[in-house]
């Protein structure tokens, strides 16, 4: 699907065409779900966040200005903010009701050894470093786009990337000279 169709779909959604939202959804559902899942490691929560993000997109689509940035960046920003709110609420509930909390991190792991190691390494990164790696490596976003999604300076993105790479290489036992 090319960029012209994305722009057409945006205009149509802005004009109230709900079917056009399905076009945008079919294009961005997978990357958004993958981003949220890699961050939260929780399937049901990821589905919830993606659906909430598209509901918010539909409500806020009139505020979207293509000149300020790509729709992909805008959608990832909505998904990130939604995810952070939900994760914070989850952590608060877990601290209040620890006996109800399940160790989701263990529940969704798969048995493939190498994949598990990578999943565990990403999971072991602090949240601020993890999100930068996910957005840059798995979703090909630029440092500038990441800075606008996370609402932080580009310099901070760079330093977080550097620290995240060091930690990942250590966790995955990657040779420094490679």
């Amino acid at each position: 699907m090319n960029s012209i169709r994305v722009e057409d779909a945006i205009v149509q959604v802005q004009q109230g065409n709900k079917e056009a939202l399905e076009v945008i959804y079919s294009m961005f559902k997978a990357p958004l779900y993958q981003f949220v899942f890699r961050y939260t490691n929780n399937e049901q929560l990821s589905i919830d966040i993606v659906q909430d993000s598209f509901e918010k997109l539909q409500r806020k689509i009139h505020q979207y200005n293509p000149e300020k940035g790509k729709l992909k960046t805008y959608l990832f920003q909505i998904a990130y903010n939604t995810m952070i709110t939900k994760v914070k609420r989850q952590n608060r509930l877990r601290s209040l009701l620890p006996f109800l909390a399940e160790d989701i991190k263990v529940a969704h792991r798969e048995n493939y050894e190498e994949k598990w190691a990578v999943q565990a390494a990403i999971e072991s990164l602090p949240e601020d470093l993890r999100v930068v790696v996910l957005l840059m490596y798995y979703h090909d976003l630029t440092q500038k786009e990441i800075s606008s999604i996370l609402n932080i300076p580009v310099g901070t993105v760079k330093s977080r990337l550097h620290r995240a790479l060091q930690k990942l290489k250590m966790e995955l036992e990657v040779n420094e000279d490679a």
Partner: protein
Amino acid sequence: MHNPFDAEEELKQKLDQYTVEVPDFPVKKARTTRIANWVFAPTYIPFPEVGYKQVSAKVIVSLPLFIIPVTFIPILFFIK
């Protein structure tokens, strides 16, 4: 802009192994589907952010069955 991953071939190979399969789900949450899932499907979690344990959920659901008879115990003291 410089991508620091470009120089990390070995790391990239490892990171590429972390694939995520996307389940099929609609764009909107259907209220009826959510209720049906909550009533009939034991795997569905109405508030996933809580991260319930299955046993804990069962205990919570069955608590009224225990509490209701207990609330009637004081009444027994007034029956002559």
